């Protein structure tokens, strides 16, 4: 936003040099007092990687997340980064050797759709339901991170299943649910300590039955699919106007600045390309409408979530470069998910699209590898030739892309964050369990370490904890 303003300002100067007599040379507006101008990062990440040492995982089958499967692979981790990956690499001096024989290594698993921390365990308790601000159909002003409880035991169980990064989204009861946040799945006292450094924000947008049911049930708009779309369009018109007012004030450098509006600030962030649209949308026809809404207002949709009918328009979604985050096994709980099929991800993949298996659920998040296996199996049943080295992307590289963090995580490539899972077996087997998990090279889980303790305070001193994990 600031860079854009500076460019506009420069353009004005160039215009002057071309001949017109300046009436009054525009100058950059003086910095506004705190709170009057949008801070680009008011709740900055304080995440620091845990202590790490140089590691060599030796002799494992490695799925790199780039489409490669390496037998008898060696993965070297140093300074929190992937240093090297290859077959039978020599182990340099000073590296702790970890036996990977018979085991499998993958990038850390990334869940593109979770409510862990904002719908915390025990989730049957009303006080723990912080997922939907069901007071207005447009609550673009709320930020999921302001609901996150780092003590949710669900972070621990997800970490023990290999989840190293997850996007937390507001719920789907509103047309605009609010800002999402992408977290490192590390034990922490505050959400800031978990925030993925540099990860862009997302905006949760919801299609379909949920918003119209919630608000139609209260006798107000939206009460129908057309009401939903009118609601989006009204909001984008307001956002475009808001953005224009700020741009114009910054360009002119005179007069009172526009008054900040949290709701429009987030929407304007989408129009400016800094915030990614994460769109809950099941039906093919509704996804097609949303693509046109985005075109009408000049922004892009990064990911359709749930998207159980993506297989009906897979070529369109591939062309538009929109990721599809979906389940394998969930279907039929409402009309808009009646046509869900197990092959959805595989068919999106086959069409050249970005397929993702997501959870939306604190149990499914612990079995994303198994959901991916069921999706792969369904694809093969349909005659598609997809290998495991490709399918692992559905829970690693592709969600990284959907979240705008693929430059630093999602694959085992030199220089990337050392987010790594060591599995007891092929992760596409039902019997595979995460044995070791590293985030930025720091060990965050070791199934065989009796000293390993879960982070959440909630279960401390509670009955039945002697077995954990």
């Amino acid at each position, binding site marked *: 936003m600031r860079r854009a303003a500076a460019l506009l300002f420069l353009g004005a100067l160039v215009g002057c040099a071309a001949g017109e007599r300046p009436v009054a040379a525009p100058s950059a507006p003086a910095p506004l007092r705190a709170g009057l101008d949008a801070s680009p990062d008011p709740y900055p990440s304080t995440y620091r990687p845990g202590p790490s040492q140089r590691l060599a995982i030796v002799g494992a089958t490695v799925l790199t997340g780039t489409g490669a499967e390496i037998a008898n692979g060696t993965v070297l981790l140093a300074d929190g980064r992937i240093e090297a990956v290859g077959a039978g690499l020599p182990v340099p001096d000073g590296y702790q050797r970890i036996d990977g024989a018979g085991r499998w290594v993958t990038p850390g698993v990334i869940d593109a759709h979770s409510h862990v921390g904002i719908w915390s365990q*025990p989730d049957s308790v009303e006080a723990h339901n912080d997922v939907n601000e069901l007071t207005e159909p447009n609550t673009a002003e709320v930020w999921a991170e302001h609901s996150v409880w780092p003590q949710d035991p669900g972070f621990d169980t997800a970490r023990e299943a290999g989840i190293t990064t997850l996007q937390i989204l507001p719920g789907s009861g509103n047309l605009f649910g609010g800002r999402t946040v992408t977290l490192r799945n590390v034990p922490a006292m505050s959400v800031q300590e978990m925030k993925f450094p540099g990860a862009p924000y997302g905006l949760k947008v919801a299609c379909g039955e949920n918003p119209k049911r919630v608000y139609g049930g209260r006798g107000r708009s939206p009460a129908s699919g057309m009401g939903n779309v009118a609601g989006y369009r009204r909001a984008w018109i307001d956002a475009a106007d808001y953005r224009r007012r700020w741009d114009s004030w910054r360009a002119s450098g005179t007069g009172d600045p526009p008054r900040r509006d949290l709701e429009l600030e987030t929407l304007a962030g989408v129009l400016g390309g800094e915030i990614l649209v994460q769109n809950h949308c099941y039906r093919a026809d509704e996804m097609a409408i949303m693509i046109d809404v985005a075109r009408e207002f000049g922004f892009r949709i990064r990911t359709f979530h749930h998207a159980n009918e993506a*297989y*009906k328009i897979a070529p369109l979604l591939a062309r538009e470069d929109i990721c599809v985050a979906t389940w394998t096994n969930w*279907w039929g709980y409402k009309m808009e998910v009646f046509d869900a099929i197990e092959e959805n991800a595989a068919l999106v993949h086959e069409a050249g699209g970005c397929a993702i298996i997501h959870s939306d659920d604190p149990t499914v998040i612990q*079995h994303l590898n198994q959901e991916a296996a069921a999706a792969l199996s369904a694809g*093969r049943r349909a005659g598609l030739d997809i290998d495991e080295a490709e399918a692992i992307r559905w829970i690693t590289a592709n969600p990284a892309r959907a979240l705008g963090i693929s430059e630093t995580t999602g694959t085992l490539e030199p220089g990337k964050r050392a987010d790594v899972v060591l599995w007891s077996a092929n992760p596409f*087997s039902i019997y595979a369990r995460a044995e070791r998990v590293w985030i930025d090279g720091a060990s965050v889980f070791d199934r065989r370490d009796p000293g390993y303790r879960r982070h959440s305070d*909630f279960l401390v001193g*509670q*009955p039945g904890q002697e077995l954990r994990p």
Partner: protein
Amino acid sequence: MIRLLATVFLLLAALPARAETIAIVNARLLTMGPQGEIERGTVVVRDGRIAAVGANVAIPTGARVIDGNGGILTPGFIQADSTLGTVEVSQVPASADRATHHDSISAAFDISLGLNPDSILLPVARLAGITRAVVTPLYDDRGNRRLLFAGQAAVIDLGQRPDMVTRPRVAMVLEMGESGAERGGGARGAEIAALRALIDDVRHFARNLALYDRGAGRPQTLSRTDLEALIPVVEGRMPLIVRVDRAADIREAIAFARAERLRIILDGAAEGWRVADEISRAGIPVILDPMSNLPHSFAELGATMENAARLHTAGVTIILKTGSGVAHRARELRYGAGNAVAYGLPYEAALAAITINPARTFGVAERIGSIEPGKDADLVLWTGDPFEPLSQPRAILVRGVEQPLSARPLDLRDRYRSMN
């Protein structure tokens, strides 16, 4: 009438081919019966039943031969705590018949009436190797309904036949513990007191039917139909499925059953492992979800992936399920069994927990649950280990009839593959 006739025609048209003589050869048989595992064997199916099982079984002349290609043959799986056949779309009430909010029908709700053999969910579950289900009523507490029982469960087959009920009224459903307390007046103790009084009422009613016929019985809180439905329960002929999770609630349920001389089946039992020996000594079977490891409530603080393995080790008969009242997600049953194995349950115990154990617990083991001569031919031939997602069924028989390997989602898949 014309609509009814049309429906009958459609039903008839949808019926699969009638039972034929089939020999499944060259398969690894996990019989779950006295013959145990047969490395390479043959199963002969005649008139809908299993006629012969063994390594050296002659193939009858005229039998259709299905070559197992070395794959695994299991009994059809049984999905406990299911609502298959009673629902199409969960959030469309008109498409669901799994719960009642009738003011005076609770125990009398018989889910075996009004089932839908044309449900598109049945073939979907079948493709996951499920050939039978224990269809179990859910609660519907609209309008502050305060009745304690959800109704009576039934065992059904998934062969999409008009006569899909294997056995009706196999158990009565009751919630105790946290959610039972809510229904029973806000406290566990209130529900237990109400239950004791109800059982006393039912016993009084059963002993004095003539008195009640004359309209002279004592005042009752339950309707007459509910009272009648509960007679087999108080007489110990019909088991009570008791939904409960907390260790203390399990103990309470065991004590309640002992005091009232009831047969119970525990359902849920997230903290069952903490009282495994007590459950084992009481000889009570447990239906549990092996994926349940989160403290969703204060009754499930001790939930763990090891629950199934620990209960089994203590000698408890376990039955695995996926979720509560599962219908659409029934196909995850085999994955749940695999996860239980990953967390310590022996493989054969996991397979028993979705075949012979539910068959015995619900009184249908003379017909289903294992590959044994004389039993109904519910058989599934797999490409590999049935618990592995990467395995798929190659042939499915329900009551001796080979089922198509199709379902509405697969039809949709093919329709759009040809379009795109």
